[in-house]
């Protein structure tokens, strides 16, 4: 037995994404956002996308480029407060935005990733975010049924990947990556470093290779990862 090689050229991997696709993106703020895969998506021109990501990045970064070029039809997210364009486009009705409590977005994705249909929770019970969602009586208490989320493609940024697609993430760049890797019909991972089989210790793999379809090497690290001076 030896494990198959899944390394793929960037352009070839991204070309498998059709317009109209539902795409999940890793990243919480900057760390973990797959900036290079997003750039390739911009270059290739796919549009009418449904994007599922924790946030909409900030002006001039990641998701913001897709918004600026009008590629996004719908955004499922938790917080867009750092992207004025996202807020403005939402207010103008140019994109649909569905907000979710952050941990419930994580769990809905994970539920899709675990092959479940839905989760049942009391989170957001008293808020407008759960208005209209089905309810279920559990233990005398009214709980909300939150449907599992899956996507056509997950785009992931990893610190290291081996050729079979085992992934390791760095620090808080992990965030949603292991979850969306489970919830996609096709997973494309860009990696800062591609290592030979056996270089990632089996106990330290964050996303097991069987979830990953394509591993793309990064030639250079996007400037969007750079540390910025904040006020």
């Amino acid at each position, binding site marked *: 037995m030896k494990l198959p090689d899944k390394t793929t050229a960037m352009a070839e991997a991204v070309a498998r994404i059709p317009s109209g696709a539902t795409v999940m993106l890793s990243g919480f703020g900057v760390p973990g956002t797959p900036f290079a895969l997003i750039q390739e998506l911009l270059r290739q021109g796919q549009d009418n996308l449904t994007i599922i990501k924790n946030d909409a990045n900030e002006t001039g970064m990641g998701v913001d480029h897709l918004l600026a070029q009008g590629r996004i039809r719908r955004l499922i997210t938790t917080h867009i407060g750092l992207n004025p364009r996202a807020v403005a486009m939402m207010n103008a009705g140019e994109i649909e935005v569905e907000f979710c409590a952050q941990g419930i977005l994580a769990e809905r994705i994970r539920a899709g990733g675990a092959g479940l249909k839905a989760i049942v929770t009391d989170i957001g019970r008293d808020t407008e975010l759960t208005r209209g969602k089905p309810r279920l009586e559990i233990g005398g208490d009214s709980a909300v049924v939150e449907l599992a989320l899956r996507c056509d493609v997950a785009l992931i940024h990893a610190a290291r990947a081996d050729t079979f697609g085992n992934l390791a993430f760095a*620090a808080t760049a992990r965030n949603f990556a292991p979850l969306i890797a489970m919830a996609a019909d096709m997973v494309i991972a860009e990696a800062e470093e591609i290592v030979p089989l056996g270089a990632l210790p089996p106990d330290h793999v964050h996303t097991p290779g069987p979830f990953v379809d394509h591993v793309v090497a990064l030639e250079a690290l996007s400037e969007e990862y750079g540390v910025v001076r904040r006020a």
Partner: protein
Amino acid sequence: MALSGAHDRMIARAAREIAPGMVVNLGIGLPTRVIGHIPADFPVCLHTENGLSGIGPTLPYEAADRNLIDAGGAYVSTIPGSAFFDSATSFALVRTGRLDLTMLGAFEVAANGDLANWKIPGRFTPGAGGGIELAQKARRVIVLTTHTDRAGNPKLVSRCTLPLTAAGCVARVLTEMAVIDVTPQGFALREIAEGLDPATVAAATGAPLSLPEGEIPTF
């Protein structure tokens, strides 16, 4: 944002809410500043919802790690015993009551403990982020906020007018003017900023404020 002396004293006062051994989440904005007031040898585990337990000191630009931020985007550090985890695990910790305390910002806090901090309809809708789960599931929720908004309107109100983050979740409100508890009878003044009198605090509060008998401790 530069803080006045009163704001600084509020942050220092907030730090005293943290008991040894606690697991604590400090929300975006003012609460994050509490980190600077925790002594280096104080036994506490700070959690940030983007996937880190054991937050260390905030780092200056030169020392920052591009992969290591808190939920507010500040460059933070680790300490011996820190752990990274994914977003699902991070909120599993929140929803199962493993957070002893969270401090959150607010647009409005009501006298019944309701909190609104994610949406001002038609004006600003950043989204709820992790706030709903922090508010609903931390064992103790303290709101750390300016007593009034920029226009001078009270943030402590009889009933929230904005969409709720969570109902009946707030135990205590800490402002530059006062420490106020949410009780079954509504807001109750517990401590007051040095140099202020209770009438001034009451006037800046948009709901009845009960005063303690005897002298009011200051901070």
